[in-house]
């Protein structure tokens, strides 16, 4: 009997599996019940396929979306168009991520009482985004495809995250007809979060950060440019011969030959390490939106390809949101605030959510950040007059990314090195041509608009 009774532990094992599984389900319940209950089509929350969430307001209190009046958007067509990707469209082609992520906070779900204490009228979701800035940014894009992002690198609030092209959600274009000449190509993609672009020369900031972290003495070196440089049998070219230049001028000139040398000295390891530090290939999560991953693969790169990778070509890709945060980190001494879109949510007058302010991990040393700030300020002073705002130290770097046979992608990234206006920005204009020509005026317009809004607060 003894050996038989010992083997009854078979039932004990099954009971343990049952109880252990139950425990892990209860843990999942506490982690994810909010998500489950507000999933599209959830029978307790959606009535007639519509979610009664309440209102979404911008940072100035302007109503961008209200579930009350038959899922209606702003009365202003420009604001409707400029905030489309944030709010989602009626057909569900552009998902309403803010609403689905915060639904539980808006209608008063909690895990104790379930949906039984749910408010029949939804709550309010306050965004950090300014509708006015969004509208101005979309106008500045002037029909070109791309994205503009601005955020406060001290607090983390995103003021602008516009994606172009866009459309009026109350009057959506019929994309099945082909009368648009590609005007709406990729219109459903929220480019700020979901795109990965070839960066071009704005990537030189990553390369330079890596080089400075490895050896700060590089700032005193000088670089010779004869217009082209042969690396591993193939040419690295500049538009013209830059002659002998300091590091400062090499960055301002965006000299490919100089950066080919810098990258060569740095090596793969150094560049990859810096890319990891700025989370280039990570998926960031911002209030329900997740970013596309950037890309830096040097596993099959020879010396020439490595040089092009350091210049921001080769197979390099960045995500605008992620790179904007890197700009914030340079501005802020190596660490920036994590970006967010939703400052608070309330339900039946009670606050149910407030933005959780967090810092990024350290992306570069304080010293490197300081040197880069100086270099990027020099860029603006000597090269990008178009972005210079009198009285404010705007720092920037432009990029002109060659993408196959199409016209180049213009990139422009930087920040305002100011206590009062701690803003980091990125502008991407697809087929925009030269980075500073296309990007700098947009950056200036949008930054001025942000400063206006901040002054009014």
């Amino acid at each position: 009997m003894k050996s038989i009774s010992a083997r009854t532990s078979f039932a004990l094992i099954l009971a343990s599996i049952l109880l252990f599984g139950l425990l892990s389900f209860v843990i999942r319940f506490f982690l994810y019940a909010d998500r489950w209950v507000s999933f599209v089509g959830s029978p307790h929350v959606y009535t007639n396929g519509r979610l009664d969430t309440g209102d979404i307001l911008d940072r100035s209190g302007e109503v961008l979306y209200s579930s009350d009046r038959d899922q209606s958007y702003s009365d202003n067509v420009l604001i409707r168009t400029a905030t489309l990707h944030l709010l989602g469209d009626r057909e569900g082609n552009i998902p309403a991520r803010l609403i689905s992520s915060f639904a539980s906070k808006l209608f008063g779900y909690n895990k104790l009482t379930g949906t039984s204490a749910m408010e029949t009228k939804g709550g309010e979701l306050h965004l950090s985004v300014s509708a006015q800035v969004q509208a101005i940014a979309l106008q500045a894009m002037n029909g070109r495809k791309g994205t503009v992002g601005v955020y406060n690198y001290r607090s983390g609030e995103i003021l602008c995250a516009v994606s172009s092209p866009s459309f009026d959600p109350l009057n959506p274009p019929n994309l099945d007809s082909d009368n648009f000449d590609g005007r709406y190509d990729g219109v459903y993609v929220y480019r700020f979060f979901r795109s990965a672009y070839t960066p071009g020369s704005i990537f030189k900031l990553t390369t330079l950060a890596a080089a400075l972290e490895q050896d700060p003495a590089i700032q005193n070196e000088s670089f010779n440019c004869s217009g082209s440089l042969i690396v591993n049998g193939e040419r690295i070219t500049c538009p013209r011969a830059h002659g002998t230049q300091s590091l400062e001028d090499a960055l301002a000139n965006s000299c490919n030959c100089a950066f080919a040398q810098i990258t060569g000295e740095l090596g793969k390891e150094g560049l990859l390490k810096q890319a990891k530090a700025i989370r280039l290939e990570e998926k960031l999560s911002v209030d329900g939106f997740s970013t596309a991953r950037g890309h830096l693969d040097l596993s099959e790169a020879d010396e020439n390809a490595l040089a092009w990778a350091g210049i921001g070509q080769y197979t390099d890709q960045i995500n605008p949101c992620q790179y904007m945060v890197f700009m914030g980190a340079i501005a802020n001494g190596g660490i920036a605030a994590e970006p967010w879109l939703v400052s608070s949510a309330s339900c039946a007058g009670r606050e149910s959510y407030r933005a959780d302010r967090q810092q990024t991990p350290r992306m570069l040393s304080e010293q490197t950040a300081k040197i880069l700030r100086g270099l990027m300020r020099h860029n603006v002073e000597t090269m990008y007059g178009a972005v210079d705002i009198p009285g404010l130290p705007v720092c920037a770097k432009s990029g002109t990314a060659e993408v196959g046979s199409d016209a180049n992608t213009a990139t422009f990234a930087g920040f305002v090195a100011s206590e009062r206006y701690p803003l980091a920005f990125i502008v991407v204009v697809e087929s925009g041509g030269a980075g500073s020509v296309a990007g700098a005026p947009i950056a200036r317009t949008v930054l001025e608009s942000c400063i206006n809004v901040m002054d009014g607060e």
Partner: protein
Amino acid sequence: MNIILDFFRGQDGFTVLSIYHGTLRLVLPLMALLIVFRSARSLLGFRREPEVWAWLRLATGELLPVTHWENLMGRKKSADIVLNFATVSKNHAVLTRLDDGGWSITDIGAKGKLEVNGRRVLSGPVNYGDRISLAGLEMVLEPVSRQEAKLQADSRTKAGKGNSPGLTLLLLTLFQLLVTVELILNRTEDRVTIMTSFGILICIQWILFFGQKLIRRSGFEVETIAFFLISIGLGICGAGNPGEMYKQLISMGIGIAMFLGLGFCLRDLETAKRLRYLAAGFGVLLFLANLALGRTINGSRNWIFIGGFSFQPSELVKLCFILTGASTMDRIVTRRNLLAFVFYMAFIGACLVVLNDFGSAAIFFVGFLAIALLRSSSYPSGMLVLVGVGMMAVLVLAAVLAIEHFPHVADRFSGYGHVWEHPFDNKGYQQTHSLMCIAAGGLFGLGLGKGWMRYMAASDTDLVFAYVCEEWGLIMGVLMIFALAMLGLFVVRSSKVARSSFYTIGATAAMSIWMVQAILNVFGTVDFLPLTGVTFPFVSNGGSSMMSCWAMMAFLKACDTRQNASFAVKLSTKGGDRG
């Protein structure tokens, strides 16, 4: 603070009714907790005093207690009577107590070196005072005196000591009354049906309770747990489908009759052993009938319709299967007739594959593993592993074939693990909506009859966990699983003082089957496992399931050896405890 107030607020603010409903949502889980806790303390907290049935006096004068009805005598440490002498075999003999109080001894590994009163025996009776010799080691079987027996009985934990089962049942009755009132308040129709049904349930449980009192049995925890689970099941029925309540009650009545009948048979091991052949044959017949008359519902051809009644033969076969598999120690060790049982399992497995009922196949397989594991305790373990692996391979092969040939099976498996990508099609609709509803219910539920699950197909059977969580709250869902797991733990705990391996095997197999049913049911609903469409014992709506659950509970009662606890166990001293 606001959250607490939320409990008591209705659509129109605070009203008497909303405060009542709110209070009840808090009180029901609390009462359930108390019911489960009291039963658990009683079932799991008893002292496991071995029962001494006889003594063996060695030539040295040393007395060895005989503590089971079936005792393995031998040199190995896991023997029940350890005889550490070089001449004695590892497995030497089995000393068995018969129903009439007499004893018999069987040679299992003695190779002829077993003698009673100087005469060589292979298997034969032993009387008190007889000299038994195991390879020259002499001992005498001596009876337990009445006084000793009385002392023993007194020292054992009495069922329900400190946890009056009557009080727990009273608590359950109050719980049921509150559930009835709540259902009636929340439903405008079928109020009479709901009231009558719960009334009948309450009557039956008290009749059963007093009936057992009448024959001086006081252990009622196992039944209380069953009635607790049935109350939840009936509450769900009342909320979504009151028309089915009477059917559930009738099934319960039949189930209880089977429970009592089987329980009384199990008191007597000889009767129980004879029952095995009947059960084996009946199981085969049931499946043959199923193969001939079966109708397909939800893809599985496991239903029979006779004169307006429908039932699932596979549910009743579970019972036959356990009876067939249970065996006494001397048989286990002497005949090693596991092979016949393997063929029996293979037959059942084949039938279930033909019927396309893979949930049941998995259940039977676990039951088979439990029985095979227990019966093979004297086997070399390699052989067992071989059989297990073989069966597993067959099962996997059958599952693969089914997935290829039956679209509904394929759908269930292809959605598994990523149901959120398929919220509106066959692959994930049931699971995602179950999770949405579980989340919507929160810890305390939306209230009886206020959920959405009732609009969904199979929500009161396959997805019953989600239904309970939505309307009664996650706490109740957890308690329902605790209650069942507790019964499993009770069986494992009592096996230490088990009388016959027949009971231990039966109860362990029954509990293993229930555990795996709960595992498949609950984890299928929440997408931890593919959804297989298996019932949760006692809670899921289904007549055949209800009957088989009650009948299988007889095995639990048969291994409850606490003093005066179970009607399925004869009182251990004549007259028993009159106090």
